[in-house]
Every structure is written in structure tokens, then in C-alpha cells.
């Protein structure tokens, strides 16, 4: 990059340098003609480019995001702050949000994933909440490819490295594999926090004369203008063209969590606002805080702690160095706050003040290098309406072919050995899921469950996304994504209370891609309203394309549920011999987008079937059954079909199953929605059947034979559960270790 001093405002205009930073001619003209009535200088142009990027401004996705349903009686804070907040009773609140770190994780998987975890944790404690759990939702290309194995290995190590060190348990997540994520892995992380409602903080800088305090790591040239970078399409040739990789320092962040929570809990009276420095670093945090309070700030950049010498104002303001927070503190009380940080071994400095003229003003080496209306950085960004065009593939869709199963034993072994289906234990074994000593249900069941210490309540949480269904039917696929998450929450005995999302899509300028986003958001929203699970936070990651090939549209749903009484906590394993096993919900020929279809045909196609009312009534039934103590275990049926759910429930306690199921061999792998596998003790049989009625189909009894023996419509399936368990358990790590 050329030296900024030598680049004049006129050069920026004449040579269209702003284009390199992602501003369009239209946007640049808007800034110079309508906002400033002069040409912006180098620094100012840089600030607009960061703040007006998709990543910070949501200029492309806002019209779609407005469709989300965010009401609901529990909502204390909806989208718009660091994270959303829901009332969970007793004066307490749960806080959560998810974030994507897809591009950084492709470029530098360990640090990209680690800093993703660090970033989302900062969002949680900046609200005043203690981070109590994390989840990770991951997508990669197939493991037959070296690069994908490398990415999975490093991404998981990065999540573990950061989460374990900072002491936030990773209690759940998901991983699946499809060729469309080659060159475009998805790394989405969610963090959940707990707090007293009276401690809720906001990112605000108000009151002329109040101080702006910077705390945490020094600013370096890391990830400069990463927000703009995340908002552009990727091409493999440009891979090398990037600024310094951001490196996470979980130790620093642990100190920050402890210190910031001390400030927010014990010094509310002098703290005006607090926010983390995320995308577009110092400019975005300070401008947003000031703008929310309808004020402005004066910052002296010479006071900003810097790790490198000779940094320009542009670099200082747009650096995405990690582990930094910005506070606004009442004038005259700065020392009290600085002392707390010092006690926690952190550097904190006053770098400026709230002003009374609403300008965003930066001083560097005694010179004013930026003087623009604060609000223009945040609010004046144009919003883009996009064309939506239904892709050809969604028209006149036929039913998917019913697979022909010549050898059911071989097929079961193949399917449970697919990395998408196989146990993820080799991954989550690397995550400390028990730190903080609240984890009731650890990874491996349908949801992670954390008890709320000091109460008899717990929180269940899960992440779900299924790009295949959404690719085949964006609207129904969106409903299914929420439903699948809710199914996992319900199976653990919890009532779903809200969601966060990460919208992972391709280039919004492609009107088919935009259609997918628009429709799936409608689907998500509809399901949310049905389940009374408002969308309280989220994140958008567009431009997930490499060399013009987009990923499946993959909105990730992170859902939280409340367990009002710990006696309702339910696991997904059959626990004893002699339990009756039932399937709740009917099984049909649903092979569109299924694992077996992908395996047999190498691609997905066909019509998706889904009935939201049926889904809802089945969820209600499961909760009723749990609340009446009529089921011993519950497990939802998802990827891979009923055979996968049955086996997973048998594996943990090495049980066998004998019975009859009124479906075909092929339907063992059907992915009909809204189903569960539950187990019932003999003495509850009558009450259970009375309540469940026709929705429940008895299929067998657990035993100690370590065999699964099922009579089917078109034959019989008998196999050894122990052998199957070994395949399921070891497939993923075997594939990671094998040489391509």
C-alpha cells in the first residue's frame, strides 16, 4: 500500500482508490457530495470503507433481516446490541449470540477459529453476562482431500485452544461434510452467558466530557480492514494478498472477562457503556457507541496503545487486533476504573472524550485527521434492494428416487461410517466441556445442558443447519433448520425459548443466491413464530464463494431452551434392558437431500416434505411425555434416518434391540422430519400409549444380546451392535489419519 501522506483526497477521487477498499462510485459520491460536501481524506475514506462494508453495515442483508420475528414475552434485548437477552425468571437472564469466522478460518484455520471463539465471548461479556458455554457449527469439504483434513484438524485445535484456556466449556456443536464447502469451510461459533437482569449493559457513549477508555491488547497491524475483506468474494489467486493474521490471546481475554465483569457488576453507577472491538476495530466500537447515544467523540490516536511503530491513523482505526474493549466512563471517575484493570494486570488508558457536537473527530500527532458526522458512519450507508430470482432447479421438482438396497447390512455400515454421520467424539474430546462444573449433559446427546447454579433450572443448547434441505427448498429448509434445533432442545426436556442465527450464503449480487437467503429467512421466521422462539441475535456471512462457486445456502440456527426443573433433563441413550422402544411420528419415503441419496447418487435432488403443524404437535407431545415422567430417553431422528438414531441410542450402554418395524429397508434411511425415538419402561406402557396415541409406533424391546434384530416390511435386519459401534466411533478419526 502506498504511503498515505502522499495520497491526497483528489488522488482518491481521481484514481478511484476507494474502490480497492470496497466502496462503490455511488457510495463515494454520496460521501463527498451529500454527507461531507467535500472530498474525504485518506483516513476518512478508510473509515467509511470499513463501516460501510457488509460485515459492519448489513447494507445488503437488512431488508431480509427485517423479516425475522423478534418479539416474544421473554425478550429483554433483541438484535442490535452485542448479543440478545432473554428472561429466564428469578431475575435472571440468558444472553447468547453466534458468529461466523469462515474466511479467516480458511486462510489461517487455527487462529481464525480461535479468534472466532474469542470474538463471540467478548460479545457476551460486553453485555454484562458471564460466558457459561460455547458451541461450534462446522462445515468442510470431503475428508478425502488433504486440505480439508488439515482445516478440520486446525479449526478444532483452535476452538479447543481458545475455549479451554479461557475456561468456557464447549458443550455442543455439529460438523458435516459436502463438496460445496471445498475452499469455503464454515466456522460458526455460539456463546451463551448468564446474568442478573439488573446488570444488563449497553454499548453507549453519552454525556459530553465523559471519558473513552481503551483496555486490553495493544493495537497492531492485524487483520487491517478485515471487515471489508470478509465482505468480498474469495478467489484462490488472491489468497496471498492479505494483512497480518490476527492471533488470539485467550489468557488476555480471561483477564478481560474477569475485569470487565467486575466493572459491570460493581461499578454500574460510573460506567456509561461498554463494547468489544470486533470487525472494523476501534472505529466501529467507538462510532457505534457514540451514535447509539446520539453523540460524537474526540479521540487522540497517540494515546492508543500500539504494538508496532509508525502506524497510520487508518491502520490504528481499522486494525482488528483481538482482546480489546472500549468503555465510556463518567468524567472524574476514570481512576477507579483504571485501578480495577491494573489489579487484573491489564493496560487501560483514556483515549478521548464524548463531545457535544456529534462529530467523529480523530487527532493524530496533533493534527485533525478525521472530522465527520458520527452518524454518517453508522446510519447513512445506503441499503441495497436486490433482485430475487427463483433458481431453475427449484421449479417442477420431482420426487426423489427411492434407493434400492441390495444389502441392508452393508448399507447401514456405510452410512454410519460417513463422516457426517459418524461419532464426533474424536473432536469434542478435545474440548473441555466440564469446566465451570455446571455441565449436566455433555456433547454426544441431542443438546448440551448446563445447570443454572443456585437454582433447580437448566439451559439446553444446540446448533443446527442443513444446507442440503435449504438448497432443495429454501423456505421449507428454513423451517426445518429451526425445527431440527427445537427437536434437539425438546428431546433433552427443555422448552425452546429463542434463537440466534448465522446466515452463511453466497454473493448477494447473484439474484438466485439472494432468493435463497430471502426465502430461507422467511421459513426460519415462520417456524420461530410457531415455536415462540424469537430471533434475538445473529450474524451474516455473505460471499461464501470460491472462484464463483457458492456453498449450499447454510443458515445456522443456535437455539436455547429452558428446563424449569432439573428432574426433566432427558438423555438420548436407552439405559436398561427391557425398555420399550417407540418411534414418534410416521416414516415416509423422504430421500431428497438425505445422506443415503448423497452417498448413492453423488448429488442431491428432489422434493422436500415438511409440515410445521405436525412438527409442533410432536414436540408438544414429547414435552408432555417428559413432564409426566413417561419416557426414559428421547432422541430426534435426523441425518441418516431412523436406523442411525436407534443405533446411537443403543451404543452408549451396549444394549441390543429386538422387534418389528413397519417400514421398508430403504425407509430405515429416510429422513422424514418431526420424528423421535423414545424408550419407555414396561410399567409406564399404558399411560404412555394413552397419551401418545396414534403418533407412537412400538418397534421393539431393548435387551442384552448386543444385537439389533428388526423385522421389516421387506425382510429382516440383524447385526452386531458392538461391531457397528466400532465403525461409528472410529470412522472420523480413521479418515483424518488416512493418507489420500
Amino acid at each position: 500500500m502506498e504511503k498515505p501522506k502522499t495520497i491526497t483526497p483528489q488522488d482518491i477521487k481521481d484514481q478511484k482508490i476507494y474502490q480497492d477498499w470496497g466502496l462503490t462510485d455511488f457510495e463515494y459520491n454520496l460521501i463527498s457530495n451529500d454527507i461531507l460536501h467535500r472530498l474525504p481524506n485518506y483516513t476518512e475514506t478508510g473509515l467509511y470503507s470499513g463501516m460501510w462494508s457488509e460485515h459492519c453495515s448489513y447494507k445488503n442483508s437488512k431488508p431480509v433481516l427485517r423479516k425475522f420475528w423478534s418479539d416474544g414475552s421473554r425478550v429483554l434485548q433483541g438484535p442490535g446490541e452485542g448479543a440478545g437477552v432473554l428472561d429466564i425468571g428469578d431475575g435472571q437472564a440468558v444472553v447468547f449470540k453466534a458468529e461466523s469466522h469462515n474466511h479467516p478460518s480458511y486462510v489461517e484455520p487455527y487462529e481464525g477459529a480461535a479468534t472466532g471463539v474469542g470474538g463471540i465471548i467478548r460479545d457476551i461479556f460486553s453485555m454484562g453476562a458471564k460466558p457459561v458455554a460455547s458451541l461450534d457449527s462446522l462445515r468442510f469439504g470431503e475428508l478425502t482431500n488433504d486440505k480439508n483434513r488439515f482445516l478440520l484438524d486446525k479449526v478444532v485445535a483452535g476452538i479447543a485452544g481458545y475455549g479451554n484456556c479461557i475456561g468456557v466449556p464447549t458443550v455442543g456443536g455439529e460438523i458435516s461434510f459436502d463438496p460445496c464447502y471445498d475452499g469455503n469451510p464454515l466456522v460458526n461459533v455460539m456463546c451463551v452467558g448468564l446474568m442478573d437482569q439488573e446488570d444488563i449493559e449497553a454499548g453507549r457513549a453519552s454525556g459530553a466530557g465523559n471519558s473513552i477508555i481503551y483496555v486490553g491488547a495493544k493495537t497492531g497491524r492485524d487483520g487491517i480492514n478485515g471487515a471489508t475483506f470478509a465482505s468480498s468474494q474469495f478467489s484462490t489467486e488472491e489468497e496471498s494478498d492479505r494483512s497480518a493474521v490476527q492471533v488470539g490471546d485467550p489468557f488476555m481475554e480471561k483477564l478481560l472477562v474477569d475485569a470487565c465483569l467486575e466493572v459491570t457488576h460493581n461499578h454500574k453507577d460510573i460506567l456509561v457503556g461498554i463494547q468489544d472491538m470486533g470487525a472494523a476495530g476501534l472505529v466501529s466500537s467507538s462510532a457505534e457507541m457514540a451514535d447509539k447515544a446520539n453523540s460524537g467523540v474526540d479521540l487522540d490516536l497517540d494515546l492508543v496503545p500500539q504494538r508496532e511503530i509508525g502506524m497510520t491513523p487508518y491502520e490504528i482505526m481499522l486494525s482488528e487486533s483481538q482482546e480489546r474493549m472500549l468503555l465510556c466512563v463518567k468524567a472524574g471517575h476514570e481512576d477507579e476504573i483504571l485501578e480495577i484493570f491494573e489489579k487484573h494486570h491489564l493496560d487501560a488508558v483514556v483515549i478521548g472524550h464524548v463531545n457535544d457536537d456529534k462529530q467523529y473527530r480523530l487527532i493524530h500527532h496533533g493534527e485533525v485527521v478525521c472530522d465527520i458526522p458520527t452518524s454518517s458512519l453508522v446510519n447513512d450507508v445506503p441499503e441495497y434492494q436486490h433482485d430475487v430470482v427463483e433458481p431453475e432447479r427449484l421449479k417442477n421438482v420431482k420426487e426423489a428416487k427411492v434407493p434400492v438396497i441390495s444389502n441392508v447390512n452393508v448399507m447401514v455400515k456405510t452410512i454410519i461410517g460417513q463422516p457426517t454421520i459418524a461419532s464426533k467424539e474424536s473432536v469434542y474430546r478435545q474440548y473441555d466441556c466440564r469446566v465451570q462444573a455446571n455441565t449436566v449433559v455433555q456433547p454426544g446427546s441431542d443438546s448440551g445442558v448446563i445447570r443454572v447454579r443456585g437454582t433447580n433450572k437448566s439451559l439446553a443448547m444446540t446448533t443446527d443447519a442443513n444446507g442440503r434441505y435449504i438448497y432443495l427448498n429454501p423456505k421449507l429448509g428454513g423451517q426445518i433448520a429451526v425445527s431440527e434445533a427445537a427437536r434437539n432442545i425438546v428431546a433433552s426436556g427443555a422448552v425452546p425459548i429463542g434463537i440466534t442465527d448465522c446466515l452463511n450464503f453466497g454473493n448477494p449480487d447473484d439474484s438466485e443466491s439472494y432468493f435463497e437467503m430471502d426465502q430461507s429467512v422467511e421459513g426460519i421466521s415462520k417456524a420461530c413464530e410457531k415455536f415462540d422462539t424469537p430471533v434475538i441475535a445473529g450474524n451474516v456471512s455473505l460471499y461464501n464463494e470460491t472462484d464463483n462457486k457458492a456453498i449450499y445456502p447454510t443458515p445456522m440456527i443456535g437455539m436455547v431452551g429452558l428446563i424449569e426443573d432439573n428432574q426433566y433433563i432427558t438423555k438420548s441413550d436407552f439405559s436398561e434392558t427391557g425398555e420399550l422402544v417407540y418411534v414418534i411420528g410416521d416414516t415416509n419415503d423422504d430421500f431428497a437431500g438425505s445422506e443415503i441419496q448423497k452417498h448413492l447418487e453423488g448429488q442431491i435432488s428432489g422434493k422436500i416434505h415438511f409440515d410445521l403443524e405436525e412438527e409442533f404437535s410432536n414436540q408438544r407431545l414429547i414435552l408432555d411425555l417428559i413432564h409426566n415422567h413417561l419416557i426414559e430417553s428421547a432422541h430426534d431422528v435426523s441425518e441418516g434416518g431412523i436406523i442411525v438414531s436407534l443405533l446411537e441410542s443403543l451404543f452408549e450402554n451396549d444394549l441390543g434391540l429386538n422387534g418389528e418395524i413397519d417400514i421398508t429397508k430403504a425407509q430405515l434411511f429416510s429422513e422424514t422430519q418431526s420424528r423421535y425415538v423414545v424408550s419407555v419402561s414396561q410399567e409406564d406402557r399404558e399411560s404412555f400409549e394413552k397419551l401418545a396415541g396414534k403418533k407412537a409406533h412400538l418397534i421393539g424391546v431393548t435387551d442384552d444380546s448386543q444385537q439389533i434384530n428388526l423385522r421389516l416390511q421387506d425382510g429382516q435386519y440383524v447385526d452386531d451392535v458392538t461391531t457397528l459401534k466400532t465403525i461409528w466411533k472410529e470412522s472420523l478419526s480413521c479418515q483424518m489419519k488416512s493418507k489420500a
Partner: protein
Amino acid sequence: MYLAQIYVHHKASILDPQGEAVLNALQRLGYDKVDAVKQGKYFEVNIQADSEDEASKVVNDIAKDLLVNHNMESFEFDLKEVAK
């Protein structure tokens, strides 16, 4: 047979939390003459090769493939011929 001593260090603009932590600890211990610390990796690798050129090619290859993260690190090395 050659012994390669490979030194891997962070590129200048990359944050080195480990080096920072060591520096802080040293300063707390009263080592006020220590100004800056960078922490990197050090490998000793035995390579069967008939010539220094061959060994040096192996070192460059393994550094590129595995030992060094080129996004963040750079490396140097020394080669010594040693007895089998």
C-alpha cells in the same frame, strides 16, 4: 547423515502472546535489562542425505509442508554433517 537445526520465529507484525508473557514474567522477576522477547520453535532433525544440497532441499520441503506456518512465521536453518 545431516543434522538440521531449524529456527522458526514469528514474522515481525504478528502478535506473539508467548513472548509477551515471558517478557512480563522476566520483568516481574526484576530482569529490567531484558527489553523484548520473542518465542519461537526450534527443531533438530536428522536427515539421511548424501550431500548438503540434498539435505537442504529436504529441510526447505518439510518447513514448507509442516514445520512452519507461512502466514505467520519464517525460518532459518543450519546444517551439519554428522556420523550415522
